[in-house]
């Protein structure tokens, strides 16, 4: 599809000391990727970005776009920190408002 250069993830090192904990944290899918509403991005464009970056089919992408539109935000993925950071940067590079946060 696109030949666009996608950035490598950049982020904070894991804040653990024990090797076992580090491995566990690296593989634990406990980072939420949240997309926020804004007044400018088109609904059709947001659907396109969700399909392109997150691999959603059109139905799932539309469901999350409508969540963003009506509820102000949508949790689009819960992933490892590394994968969440990658999504964070890719989605923002398309101009959408996005944050990641560790789930409790």
């Amino acid at each position, binding site marked *: 599809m*696109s030949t666009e250069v996608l950035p490598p993830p950049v982020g904070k090192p894991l804040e653990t000391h024990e090797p076992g904990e580090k491995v566990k944290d690296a593989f634990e899918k406990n980072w939420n990727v949240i997309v926020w509403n804004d007044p*400018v991005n088109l609904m059709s464009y947001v659907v396109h970005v969700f399909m392109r970056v997150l691999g959603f089919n059109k139905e799932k992408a539309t469901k999350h776009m409508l969540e963003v539109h009506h509820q102000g935000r949508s949790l689009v993925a819960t992933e490892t920190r590394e994968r969440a950071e990658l999504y964070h940067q890719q989605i*923002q590079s398309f101009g959408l408002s996005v*944050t990641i946060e560790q789930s409790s």
Partner: protein
Amino acid sequence: MNAQRDKGTLLVHLNVFEGRLLHRILGIIAENYKVRPEDIDSQTAEAWYSARGCRAAKMSADETRDWLAALHQVKQANLARIQEWSAALAGVKPAGYSLRLDLGAAEAFMTAINDYRLMAAARHDITEAEMDFGSEREVANLPPARRAALMEIHLLAWLLEEILAALNGS
């Protein structure tokens, strides 16, 4: 204005006004893509290089700087193509303009014009209220610069919709 698939490419047809406007817009985008996140105006920085997500992820100042630099690299990677498209729309062509894009480049094109929409909205304080204007009178009451920004944002939205429809085959 319309966009269609043609032999593995995307063909965008524009009238004289649309072509002249898009030529200017692509030039502005190219100039702003060259500017580093720390040097760009604060409104565009907030629209393109918001560090909100970095703060939420508790990144350090150094990590945030690196993260923003990587985001800037993504934009810069498309600079040559944007300049090429702008050059293709140079000069007055009374019959209108045709811009042919490789399908693989269509996404960079959409991102660039969407970036312009975000930048124009940020610089001219176009909020949901202005985006939802339903009458010409409301638009006419805006100061000229804000009115022009709003019209550009809507015109580029139309172009985005045309391209997405062409890519999706509808």
